[in-house]
């Protein structure tokens, strides 16, 4: 069978990058608003715009009728928006709309450029040493750390006044512009991790990603593989930011952030198709 080269008139990667930049700029604006005086009178602290804040304060709200301090009822709306995306398209929020995911993608891209990669060729393994791929013996158990983080936070939230993760909150560390020594420490660890391992936070520690992972199995908008067309060239495996092995056979993998880089990289038309239902 001869390979059909996919004609690309529309770049999904460029759309994603544009949306990610808009999300990052929007979050910075919320952070900027956070440091201006009179924030309280304008409704909602910085934390109240966080989707995960909704999860952190959900159990206390159900049991006491009050949200945790620094969170707000708006957290539930933001969480509902995130769950809505997950219901429709799985972990697409992580791949497209999460500001931390976007920052990690930017850090990876800039690291590659700083280390001398002039132009990233899609589907070809880079000669640049970073980002690293952790050995499977370390990678596999670490992937479960995010579920443990989620469980600990849910249990801890019942006896807390502020959200349990607040002092180490990555979104605050990157965007809030109100830094403490703990947040500086968190920021340095996050940046170092993101330089060393692509999507370091998403893979190993993100509790929101752990919450959304199950939706990859049930969401109606999904990628499917046409067996007759795929020749297992492995280009999609190389481009996968979440390092999922054998991507065409694991399109509903809980780790997949639905960034669509595999679809974008695939050179054989009809091998991967986006479907609803």
């Amino acid at each position: 069978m001869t390979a059909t080269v996919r004609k690309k008139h529309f770049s999904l990667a460029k759309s994603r990058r544009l949306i990610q930049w808009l999300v990052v700029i929007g979050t910075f604006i919320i952070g900027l608003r956070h440091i201006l005086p009179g924030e309280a009178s304008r409704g909602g602290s910085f934390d109240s715009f966080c989707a995960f804040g909704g999860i952190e304060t959900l159990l206390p709200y159900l049991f006491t009728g009050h949200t945790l301090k620094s969170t707000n009822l708006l957290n539930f709306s933001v969480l509902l928006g995130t769950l809505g995306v997950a219901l429709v398209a799985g972990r697409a929020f992580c791949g497209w709309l999460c500001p931390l995911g976007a920052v990690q993608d930017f850090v990876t891209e800039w690291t590659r450029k700083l280390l001398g990669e002039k132009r990233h060729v899609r589907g070809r393994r880079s000669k640049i040493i970073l980002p690293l791929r952790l050995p499977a013996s370390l990678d596999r158990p670490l992937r479960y750390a995010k579920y443990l983080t989620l469980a600990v936070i849910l249990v801890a939230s019942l006896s807390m006044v502020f959200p349990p993760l607040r002092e180490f909150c990555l979104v605050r560390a990157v965007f809030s512009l109100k830094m403490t020594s703990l947040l500086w420490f968190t920021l340095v660890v996050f940046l170092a991790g993101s330089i060393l391992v692509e999507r370091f936070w998403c893979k190993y520690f993100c509790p929101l990603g752990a919450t959304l992972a199950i939706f990859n199995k049930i969401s109606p908008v999904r990628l499917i593989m046409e067996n007759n067309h795929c020749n297992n060239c492995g280009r999609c495996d190389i481009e996968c930011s979440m390092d999922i092995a054998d991507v065409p056979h694991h399109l509903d993998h809980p780790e997949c952030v639905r960034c669509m880089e595999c679809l974008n990289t695939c050179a054989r038309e009809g091998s991967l198709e986006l479907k609803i239902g």
Partner: protein
Amino acid sequence: MKIHPRYYPAIIIAAYVIFLLIGILLGFGPKEGGEGHGRGAFLPCLCLTLEVPA
């Protein structure tokens, strides 16, 4: 049903905005303001609704 990839970003954004608005319409807005500790009307209303038949 196949979808053209060009519609994928619009689907994601539309889903986010629609569900966010549903949340705000349900009363989960930033009305309480300030440093949080909000108390919504949704939960008390739900409790009252469930208590009425009893």
